[in-house]
């Protein structure tokens, strides 16, 4: 008796046993228990991208109906299993490429075949088919392993601190160059006409569809390192060729048949890539995030799995590399550098290769800004510089040692985004206790490792204060959004620093202890380094507008001037000292002008524990008031990030 005949016999027996309960005649050849087990198997659910939501309902995140053969496929994994098996036996053309079902869903096919065995598939009338388009797709990757790549923030843009993630599929080439590998990214498909607010709102509400794209890694490197001056962090994953291929096959199933609606905060690039990694590695549990998914957090999720990351590689941005070269020049060389870029000396007369390399690096960086006129003007200078450079010998061992590029953006070493903390303090003669909580993300006193240095982006959070003497609970602050970018100006770049703040807070210059005002502040200024990148001083001019019943007329406004310094002598310690001249233009019964002094310290005890000490005072306010307010305050805070 041949195997085929045995299978038929088995099938007949199975049919006779399971006929009454089988969902479909096609799948009836399979034992019902086996079918149920398969439909419930974690891997099958992962292939369908089933997730259990907040309310406990389970459904697939995939939004395109063509991803499912069954009408109920999005919520019923068993129905989808039965329908998939039925489809594999039919001569259908499915998806964008009008492929045979098993070419459109090659990983489902592989999995079901390995679970059920070729015999059962044969009985169901399912035969292996040739899939030339799929073969071509797989061949273009020649997958051996995979790397998770994280891009850090743009300089001067705290909003981009969330970063972006994509995958690099490492090829099996004998003499491999990473740049020639293929990148696999998932991003919102945004029509070129959508800009600004449309982009933000549609992105927030799932108005775009997310798509996978295959891009040569060199193009990604160009995009991030050069055009956008972001660092790249490469996390080599412990994936073998077979696992990497599974990942690609599932991406193929998703991309050629369907789409995900793209949500900036949860179903984003990072989340979908993690879902793919879960297919590659069935024992990895990566997508248990709540509320929001930040790309940097997904990198942490991967690094938390023991053995998942086999190596970490850093690619500094073009901007960092340029400054690294410029920093290595001595005074004479720097003079030469400025002569050349200022057009006062033709490159042909320069005999110093280090200077010429710095000029080329600078012009390359400038070119990325996309200013057409400037680029056309600079093109001959760049060409002359490079020609001259090529005529000089190698710099060789005589090269001045380059100071290592700051590896400050590595995401998995950064603190976690949520914060909870408690404070004890003294205000005047009374003690107080505080509790604080925030959803995210990073403020000026946080240790900057893994984030954009001297930048702030804070999301909703709240601080409440308890006054034991009077037994009163008071809302100290409800944070809406705080954004600050302190961009140290250099001799080459003069970009403004800026700040925006939206909150509801308890003002300290008013004679009430439990009153609040809504506040919005915005402004700009400048930042400079003092002798070292670790010390900065900045000045910001702000416009302040506040509303609430605690002030006469129900609102107040006025310009403010803040002068401050942040010293960061060791990575774990920061000290901020600030004086803010505040004007209250509508004030009639006391001084219109007063100064707020603040002196803050922060010490990171570990990645997620931190101690802060803060002192503040207002002076010389309120001298026209009947009862002077004691506005001196000191507090000690313990924060935990999670």
């Amino acid at each position, binding site marked *: 008796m041949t195997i085929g005949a045995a299978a038929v016999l088995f099938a007949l027996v199975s049919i006779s046993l399971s006929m009454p309960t089988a969902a479909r005649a096609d799948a009836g050849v399979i034992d019902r228990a086996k079918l149920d087990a398969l439909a419930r198997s974690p891997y099958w659910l992962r292939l369908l991208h089933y997730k259990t939501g907040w309310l406990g309902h389970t459904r697939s995140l995939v939004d395109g109906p063509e991803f499912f053969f069954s009408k109920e496929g999005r919520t019923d994994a068993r129905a989808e299993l039965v329908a998939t098996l039925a489809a594999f036996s039919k001569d259908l053309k499915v998806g964008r490429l009008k492929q045979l079902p098993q070419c459109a869903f090659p990983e489902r096919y592989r999995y079901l075949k390995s679970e059920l065995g070729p015999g059962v598939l044969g009985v169901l009338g399912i035969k292996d088919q040739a899939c030339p388009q799929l073969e071509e797709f797989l061949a273009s990757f020649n997958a051996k392993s995979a790397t998770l790549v994280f891009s850090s923030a743009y300089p001067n843009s705290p*909003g981009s601190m969330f970063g972006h993630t994509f995958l690099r599929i490492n090829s099996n080439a004998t003499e491999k*160059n990473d740049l020639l590998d293929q990148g696999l990214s998932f991003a919102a498909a945004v029509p070129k006409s959508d800009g600004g607010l449309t982009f*933000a709102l549609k992105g*927030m509400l799932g108005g775009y569809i997310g798509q996978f794209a295959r891009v040569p890694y060199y193009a990604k490197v160009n995009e991030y390192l050069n055009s956008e001056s972001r660092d790249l962090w490469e996390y080599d994953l412990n994936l073998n060729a077979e696992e990497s291929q599974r990942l690609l096959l599932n991406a193929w199933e998703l991309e050629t048949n369907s789409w995900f609606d793209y949500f900036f905060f949860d179903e984003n690039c990072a989340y979908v890539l993690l879902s793919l990694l879960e297919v590659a590695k069935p024992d990895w549990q990566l997508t248990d995030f709540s509320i929001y998914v930040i790309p940097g957090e997904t990198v942490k999720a991967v690094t938390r799995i023991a053995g998942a990351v086999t190596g970490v590689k850093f690619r500094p941005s073009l901007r960092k590399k340029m400054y690294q070269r410029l920093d290595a020049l001595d005074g004479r060389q720097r003079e030469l550098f400025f002569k050349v870029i200022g057009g006062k000396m033709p490159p042909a007369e320069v005999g110093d290769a280090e200077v010429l390399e710095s000029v080329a690096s600078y012009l390359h960086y400038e070119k990325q800004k996309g200013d057409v006129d400037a680029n056309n003007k600079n093109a001959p200078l760049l060409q002359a510089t490079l*020609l001259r450079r090529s005529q000089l010998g190698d710099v060789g061992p005589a090269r001045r040692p380059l100071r290592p590029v700051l590896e400050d953006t590595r995401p998995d070493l950064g603190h976690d985004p949520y914060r909870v903390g408690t404070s004890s303090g003294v205000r005047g003669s009374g003690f107080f206790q505080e509790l604080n909580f925030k959803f995210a993300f990073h403020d000026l006193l946080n240790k900057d490792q893994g984030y954009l240095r001297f930048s702030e982006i804070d999301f909703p959070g709240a601080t409440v204060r308890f006054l034991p003497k009077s037994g009163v609970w008071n809302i100290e602050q409800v944070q809406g959004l705080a954004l600050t970018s302190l961009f140290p100006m250099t001799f080459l770049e003069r970009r403004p620093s800026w700040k925006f703040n939206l909150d509801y807070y308890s003002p300290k210059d008013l004679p009430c202890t439990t009153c609040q005002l809504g506040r919005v502040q915005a402004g700009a200024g400048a930042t400079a380094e003092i002798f070292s990148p670790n010390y900065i001083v900045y000045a910001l001019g702000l416009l302040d507008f506040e509303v609430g019943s605690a002030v006469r007329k129900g609102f107040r406004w006025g310009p403010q001037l803040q002068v401050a310094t942040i010293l960061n002598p060791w990575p774990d310690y920061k000290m901020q000292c600030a004086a803010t001249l505040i004007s209250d233009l509508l004030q009639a019964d006391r001084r219109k002008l007063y100064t707020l002094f603040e002196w803050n310290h922060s010490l990171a005890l570990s990645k997620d524990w931190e101690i802060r000490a803060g002192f503040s005072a207002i002076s010389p306010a309120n001298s026209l008031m009947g009862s002077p307010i004691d506005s001196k305050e000191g507090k000690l805070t313990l924060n935990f990030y999670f």
Partner: protein
Amino acid sequence: MKILTIVLLALALAPAAMAQTAKKKHKTAPAPQAETKQAAKATKTNEEGPSGGVPGEPDIDGCGLGWQVTDSQSIIGAITRGTTNGTVPPSFGMTSGSLGCKKVPFTKRDQAGATYAVSNYDSLRIEMAEGQGEVLAAFARTLGCGDTAAFGRMTKKNYGTLLEGQSTPVRMFYKVKQQIQLDPALTASCAV
């Protein structure tokens, strides 16, 4: 709860997103035109000039390098280029910046190297002048060259020839190929 958070975060992210989009626009919009002008000029010079073209260099028909640069290729790439337009926004799954040009008749063998040269022209020129670097080594690979150090020495030595005048990435690519053939040792190490 989730909706509340999303709305708050929406408020929060709007300025950042706007900044990013603005930056992207600024970056992508003017560049292709400038490159095209430059390339068109170069092609014209090539047609009229006494030096003539480079052996193997296809007629770029004045379209410049815009034609080849793809920001991003859909996973299904060229296969579906005609069919996905209905469901996919035009910025994806298509060759962006083709500027209505004729398809350039590269041989299949030249495709990888020429595409690479177009995409990495700026970094490549710098490393060619310095005679070394990762971008240059990858370029050597696309030309099938095993000895990347020798390849780097060649580009540094011949930089003036390879990038003379108003060069373009495609012109540079063919001159590099030509130069390889003039050097017996390199010819042996490369598969051009």
